[in-house]
Every structure is written in C-alpha cells, then in structure tokens.
C-alpha cells in the first residue's frame, strides 16, 4: 500500500470512530431532553418566581422573610428532624432485615424480597390511610393492646410525630433495604470464612469484615432515604394530623390557600439548596461516587 492510501485509511477510521461516538450519544439524547424539559426548566421557572415579592416586584423579600420568621426556621428544623429520625428508624429496621435476607438461600430470599417490595408497589396514599386505620385512637393497635391489657388508655399513635415516623419509616424502608441487600449479596462469603479461619469468632468477623464491607450499601440507602424524606408530603400530611409541618406541607398551604407562589417557590429553592448541600456533604465525607457506584463492597 502506498503512503497516500494509508492516510486515506487513517482518516476513514477516525471518521468511523466519530460517527460511532455520535451514535452512542444520540441514544441518551431523548433522556437528556426529558431531563431538560421536566426538571431543569421547571426548577429554573421556580427560581424565577421566587424572586418576586407579593407586590410582583423583583426582590429578595421571599428569602429574607424566611430567615427572619421563626416559623419558617422551625419548619426547616422539623423537616430535618423527621428525616433524621425516619432514616435512623429505617437503619435500625432495615439492616437486620437486609442481613437476614442476604443469608437466606436464593429462593427464600426472593420471597422475602417480595414481602419487602409488595407494599412498595401499592399506592402510597392507600398505605398511608391504612396506617391511619391501624394507628388511630380506636384503631387496631389500640383495640388489641387494651383488650390484652397491655395499656389502659389509648396510645397517641396517629396525628402526631409518632404516626408520621411510623408511616414514613414503613414507606422508606425498601429504599434502604434494596441497596443494602445488593451490597451485602456482593460480599463474597469467602471473606467471612477467611475471617473465621484467621481466628475471628462470628461477632468479630461481622464487626471487622461484614459490617465495613456493607457500609457503602448502607450509606447509599441512608442518603436516598434522607433526601426523599426531606421533600416528603403525603404521609406526614395525613399521619401528622397538622402537628408535624414539613417544608413540603408549608409549600402546599402557601400555594393552595394563599396563592403565594413567590414564597412557596423560595421555600422550594431553599429546600433544594439544602438537599444539594446534604448530598455535597455526604460526597465529601463518604466519597459518594464510590457509594453510588457500588463502591468496594463487591469483589476486588
């Protein structure tokens, strides 16, 4: 082959590579467009709205009010408190559950997973009202508890923080269990055998080997649950009985009752900002890329 022919080949190969890259990019174009239309554009619009005060004049009034008014601060504190407590409850319930499922033989694990996922596929509203039926003053729990003589007066389980936490923990549990179960399943059982062989009793093998290897999955679950909780609306609205007011509920009142889009938007923007801050902090602290990318929980 002549040198000229070689050059033509090289140019053609470069062209082929470019075309291939373009083709690959075009595959994700619809998704990118969708993200632009349903996320970027509305958020931008929201931000734009938040810059206008009640009189329709461009100002930062909506933001300054938030920092001056105690009620707004309290709402944000409540939101973070509820999210934190729900996440903690999910960890307490979810870790042993995921561990148990990860130990089961495949078929039983699938069945257990179904039990975790079945409520996940049921309507959020239905589940929330179901909890109301179970937890309210004359609900199942109180009826049975009193009939069995476990307690005298009905416990206050609904229309307050208790109900909110119970309901939210139930709704959020699968979001914690799924990534955690995945991480646990990826832990080669030979690690546990090696730990035992090297002299670790079951408890220290768990503490020194299994637990650290499952942490990336646990952190992934914690972050997902916590962030979802920050913007949660239906369950706290129904089970909180108006006593637990989270940011999302305040936004709803502002829009629905007072038609105050400016303040509502500002609340939304601040919540979004705080959520991003949480994610950023998690990223810095826990190296989120490793958490979300599956991390080192799997095989070396």
């Amino acid at each position, binding site marked *: 082959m002549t040198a000229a022919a070689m050059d033509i080949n090289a140019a053609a190969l470069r062209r082929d590579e470019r075309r291939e890259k373009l083709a690959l990019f075009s595959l994700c174009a619809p998704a990118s467009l969708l993200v632009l239309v349903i996320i970027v554009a509305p958020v931008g619009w929201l931000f734009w709205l938040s810059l206008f005060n009640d009189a329709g004049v461009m100002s930062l009034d909506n933001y300054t009010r938030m920092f001056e008014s105690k009620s707004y601060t309290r709402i944000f504190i409540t939101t973070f408190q509820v999210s934190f407590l729900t996440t903690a409850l999910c960890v307490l319930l979810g870790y042993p559950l995921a561990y148990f499922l990860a130990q089961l033989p495949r078929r039983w694990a699938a069945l257990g997973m179904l039990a975790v996922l079945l409520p996940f596929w049921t309507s959020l509203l239905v589940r929330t009202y179901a909890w109301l039926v179970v937890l309210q003053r004359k609900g199942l729990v109180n009826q049975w508890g009193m009939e069995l003589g476990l307690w005298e007066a009905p416990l206050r389980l609904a229309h307050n923080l208790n109900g909110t936490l119970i309901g939210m923990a139930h709704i959020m549990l699968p979001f914690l269990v799924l990534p955690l179960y995945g991480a646990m399943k990826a832990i080669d059982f030979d*690690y546990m055998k*090696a730990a035992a*062989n*090297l002299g670790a009793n079951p408890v220290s*093998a768990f503490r020194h080997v299994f637990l650290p*290897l499952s942490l990336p999955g646990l952190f992934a679950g914690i972050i997902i649950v916590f962030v979802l909780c920050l913007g949660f609306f239906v369950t706290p609205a129904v089970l909180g009985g108006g006593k637990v007011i989270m940011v999302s509920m305040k936004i709803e009142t502002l829009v629905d009752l007072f038609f105050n889009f400016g303040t509502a938007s500002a609340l939304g923007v601040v919540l979004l900002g705080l959520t991003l801050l949480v994610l950023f902090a998690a990223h810095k602290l826990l190296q989120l890329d490793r958490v979300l990318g599956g991390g080192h929980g799997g095989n*070396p």
Partner: protein
Amino acid sequence: MQRIDALPIHIRAVTKTYGAVYALDGVDLEVRSGEFLTLLGPSGSGKTTLLMVLAGFTRPDAGSLKFGDAEVIRMPPHRREVGMVFQNYALFPHLDVAANIGFPLKLRGIDKNDIHARVESALATVQLQGFGDRRIHQLSGGQKQRVALARAIIFEPRILLMDEPLSALDKKLREHMQIELRRLHEQLGMTTVYVTHDQREALTMSDRIAVINHGRLIQLDDPRAIYDHPADPFVANFIGESVLLPVEIIDGKPCYRGRPLQVAAGHARDDKTTPGALLMLRPERLVFMDDARADAAAYNRFDGVVGHAVYQGENFVTYITLDDGHEVAVRSVSRKQSLAAAPPPGSTVTLGLHRDETALIPGHTAAAGNNNNDAETNRGHKP
C-alpha cells in the same frame, strides 16, 4: 520468620454426604508432621470437601479428625488455629496489605508495635517489603497470592491449608510460585495440605500425594511411586499420559497378545495375586526400536503403523496405531538427530519399552476394554 513446630493430622473414617451423594466416603489419611501433602483429584472428587473439613467450614457426617492428639472434628473454624490460603485469596478489600496480614494478630490482641514488626517480617518472608500500605486492588495476581500466604502464616499456625492457590495465575508465574511455596515450606516447616487438580503441580511440590476420586482415597505415595506405580487404572490415566493394554496371565507370567512380557522384579507389583493386569505405556518411556541398540533384548516390543506427528517445541509426539488397534503416543526430545530419524507417516515401526520401565497395574482383564477407552479419551484431551 521462625521455623514452626508442626503437628500431624489424623483423619479417620471421615464421611460427608450431600443427599445420596458421598462427597467423602470413609476417608482415612495420616498427614505426617511437617510434610507437604497434596490432595489430588478431578473436580468433584471430594478433595476440596476434605480440605474444608480440615478447616472446619464443612461439617462431616461422621469420623474423627485429630490435630496432634487433640480431637477437633466439632471445633469451630475460628478456634482451629490453622492457616488457610483460599483459591480466590479472600483478601479483605477494605483493608490495606498490612492490615490484612496483621488481621489475625489484631484478633489475638497483640500489641500494635509487635504487629507492625511481625507484619514487616512476614512481608519480607514472601518478598513483598514495602507493600504494607498498598490497597488490595492495586496488587497483581502474584502479589495477592503472596499477601494471602503471609496472612495465613503470620500467626504461626502449625498446619497450613491451601485450596488451589495458584490456579488463577498464568503458567510462568504459577511455576515460579510452586518453587517459592516449596522453599517457604522448607523454611517454616509446618504441616501443609495442598489441594490441586493439576497433576504436574502435585508432582512438583509434594512430599506425598493423596489421589482422591469419588470421595475415596485411591492412593497415597510419594510422587515417583504414584507416577511409576499407579495403584489402579484411574491413577494411571489421571497422572501423566498413559495407554493401558490388556495383559493375560499365562502360567503365572504376564503376556501381551500371547507374547511374554519382561518385567523387572520390583516393578511387577501384585501381578501374581490379582486375576488380571494392565500394561501401562507412557509416551516418554517408549522408544523407536532399532536393532543396532546394544540392549535390544531388554525391550518389550510392540508393532504398529505411524499416524500423525505433533511438534511441541521441546518435544515431538508421534502417534502409532498398534496392531491390535490401540493408539499410543511416543514422546521424543526435539533434537536434530531424533527429528531426522522420526519414522514417516504410514510406515511400520516397532516400539520398545525397557523391562525396567515396564509397569503392570492391577486391573481386570475383562475391564481392560473399558479402561482402555478411558485411556483413549484421556489422551485425546492432552496431546
């Protein structure tokens, strides 16, 4: 690291069933103190199950297992104090090299400075000085292998178990590590039980080889005895290449196709007590007969027709179809003269097997046909 005071292992009638399948079928085995013993067998033979019983990861149905004088059959793995190198190394990915190696010492509550010193010494033993702060995923296969080994020996176990530790390495590195493991064993001297399905590895490394098949111990001997005097057709086929020819016993003398075979006194094991025997032909023991050979009379002769030949670099293998239809391989060293003297395909040749190298294997003549089929298939896998 210091020399380790080794312990013998006594395995008695250990049985393990999975449903109706016997993974281990009454295995009796004595591992001598300080020896390097290899459990060799095909996959599914039970060799790994036996190792797992030694480590305590598999609970047998019955039997007795003693380390020295102590019965350990019911002892949980974390109290057995045996080192183990896993097939996939099982190095903890969340710990660096030093923390992996120091792990057993940390569990034993040893002082931090002590751990550091001993980890350094263990790293030196496996020739990985300065690797302590590496992450596991930064290591090559051979380095992981060494770290796994260092971790298994740092707490000075008196027994070391290895489960096909070299199977993930490429051929060159594997052969290098075989020598190194052997050197380390000579240096430290702990009783070592090594599992492999690679017969060459077993021959290279072991003091003794225990051939396992169908959950049973078939033969326990040193490598040369295993290779030269296999106890049965399975061992003959599994270790090295061989073709087994049926032998009739006529007037108490072994004969092949009516011709008496010359057998060296020491080599004719059991041929008088067993009803039948098989003659083992190994490719490297066969020569092309040449009447100019001074000791031609000392050879048993087999006539056949030359088939195809395969050049393998250091060797070349010629396939010969004997008069009775058996195909045997002859392996010759690739020297210029021998290549030039190789008989052309289609020509008639006479093969010779020296009487000192003529080995009879106990086996029924009636079954010889079957065994021979096995031999054929076996050879077919590894020309």
